[in-house]
C-alpha cells in the first residue's frame, strides 16, 4: 500500500489534492483501490490541516490515519518540522512547497511560482503534478480525468495546466 500524508492550512486545498489523487488512482482500473480522507474534525481556515490518501491494488481494510507514509507533501513550509520524519517509512520522502532550504532530506519544490504564474490561488494541484512526476503512482492523464470529474468546470483548465507545469518543472 502506498500512503500519502498531505499537510496544509485550511483553505489551501490539501484535502482536495488528497481526494483527486485517490480518484485518479482509482480511475486506472477495476483493481486500483484508494481511500481519501481529511484529518477528522472541525474545519477552520488557516489552521493546520492533514489529509490522507491510501492507494493499493487490493481492497483497503485499514481506515485509520496513516502512521508511516511513503510521501508527506507539505503545501505551506511553515508547517515543516524535523519530527515529521517519524511519520515516514524508511524509504519515505518529504516534499515541501518552498522557495528556501528546509533541511533534512526533504525535496524542495517551488510550487508557488507555478501557481502564481497561472494566477491560481491554491498550490494543491501543482503539488499533485509534482508527486505524480516524482512517484509515478499516477500519470498526468489520470489526474486530468480526476480534475474533469471532481472539480468545478470553470477551474478545470487552470488546474490541469498546473499539473502539467509542475510535471515539466520536476522533469527539467
Amino acid at each position, binding site marked *: 500500500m502506498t500512503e500519502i500524508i498531505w499537510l496544509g492550512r485550511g483553505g489551501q486545498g490539501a484535502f482536495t489534492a488528497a*481526494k483527486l489523487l485517490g480518484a485518479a488512482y482509482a480511475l486506472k482500473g477495476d483493481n486500483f483501490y484508494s481511500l*481519501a*480522507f481529511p484529518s477528522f*474534525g472541525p474545519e477552520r481556515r488557516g489552521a493546520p490541516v492533514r489529509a490522507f490518501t491510501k492507494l493499493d491494488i487490493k481492497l483497503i481494510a485499514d481506515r485509520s490515519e496513516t502512521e508511516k507514509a511513503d510521501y508527506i507533501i507539505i503545501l505551506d513550509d511553515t508547517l515543516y518540522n524535523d519530527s515529521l520524519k517519524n511519520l515516514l517509512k524508511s524509504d519515505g520522502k518529504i516534499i515541501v512547497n518552498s522557495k528556501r532550504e528546509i533541511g533534512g532530506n526533504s525535496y524542495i519544490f517551488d510550487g508557488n511560482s507555478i501557481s502564481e504564474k497561472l494566477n491560481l490561488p491554491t498550490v494543491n494541484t501543482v503539488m499533485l503534478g509534482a508527486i505524480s512526476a516524482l512517484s509515478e503512482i499516477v500519470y498526468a492523464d489520470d489526474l486530468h480525468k480526476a480534475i474533469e470529474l471532481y472539480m468545478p468546470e470553470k477551474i478545470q483548465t487552470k488546474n490541469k495546466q498546473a499539473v502539467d507545469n509542475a510535471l515539466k518543472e520536476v522533469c527539467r
Partner: protein
Amino acid sequence: MAKKFLSGDEAFAEGVKLARPQVISAYPITPQTIVVERLSEMVENGSLKSEFIHVESEHSALSCAIGASAVGARAFTATSSQGLLYMAECLPYASGGRFPIVMMNANRSTALPWNIYGDQRDSISQLDSGWIQAYAENAQEGLDFALMSYYIAEHKDVSTPFMVNLDGFVLTHTYETVDIPTQELADKFLPPYETDNRLDIENPKNMAFSAGPEHNFIFKYKEHQALLNAKKIITEAEKRFADIFGRKYTGLLETYRTEDSDYILITLGSIAGLCREIADNLRAKGKKTGVVRLRYLRPFPTEELVTAVKNAKAVGVLEKDISFGNEGTVFTNVNSALFQAKTVIPSYNFIGGLGGKNISHEDIENIFDLIENGAERVNFIGIEGGD
C-alpha cells in the same frame, strides 16, 4: 452502473435518491450534514422529485417523517448523536405506529465531554426503540443499505422503521470508489410504497390512537414479531438485490475464516476490515483466528452467531460503546445468545474508539492475544488496569 469516488455521506445520498423518497425532512448535524446537503441539492436541481422539509430540530424532523409516512409517503430523515437523542421521544411513535421510515444515523459520540467524533453510543442507546438497526462497513454497503432498507422496512410482514448506521468520519467523510446502480434497476428492485397503514379519506380509520393495558400489550407483541419477521425479509431482499445488482450480502452477520477458528473477534461497523487483516496476519503465524461482523443489531442474529462461534475456544467483542456500570451492550447481547444455546465459551469485552479514539493494528493484535490468554471481563483498550 456508474463508478464514482464519493464519501460515505455522498454515497448514502445517492442510494436514497435511487429509492425515490417522497418526503425528506432533516436538520443538519456533523457528521451527517453532507447527506442532507446533497439531497437538498438534488431536490433543488430537479434530479430528485421529493418534498424537502427544512425543519427546526431533530424532534420535528422525525415528526414530519411520521406524518408523511402516515399518509402513505416514502419518507427519509438523517441525524447523529445528540440529534438522535433529541429525536428519541419520536422513535417509538414511528415504530409503534409501524411507519417504515428510513433514517441514516452518522455514529457519533454523545456529550459530555462534547465531541463530534465517531463512536456507537448514540444508536446503541436506542436499541430498544423498536427500530431495525443495521451497521455498514464501507460506503458501498451504505448505499446498498439505503435501497435495501426501504424494501425490508416497507414489507407488509415487517412495517417497521429502519436505522442505517455509518461510523462518523471514518465512513461519512472518507472517499472511496462506489458503484451507483442505474435508476432503472433501482426501480426494478424497489417498487413504490403501498400500504393500508395510511390516512385515507375514502376509507377512514383510526390511526395513532391510544390503547389501554389489555390491547397495548398485543400491539407490543406484534411489534416484536415484526422485527423477528424482518430476518426472513432481509434474506429475501438480499437475494433480490444480488439477482438485480450482482452484489451479495450475508444477512444479519458476516463471518470471516470462522469455520476452523479457535479465537474469534466479534465486532461491527468500519473497524471490521482491520480486524480481518490482523486475523490474516495471525493466521500466517499459525494462530487460528477469525472475525464476525454483526451487520444488524436489531433483529439480533442470535442463532447465526451461535452457529458461527460455537466451536471456538474463546471469543472477544470489540465495540465503540459502554453501558456504564455494566459492560458493552453488544457484549451483553452476544453472551445472551451464547447462553441461550448452552454454548459455554470464555468471552471478553473490549471497549474502544470512544470519542473517536483510533483503534490501531497493535490494539487489535493485543485483543487477539488477550482472547487467547485471558483478560478481564471488560477491557478498555489502551487504559492499563482500567483506572
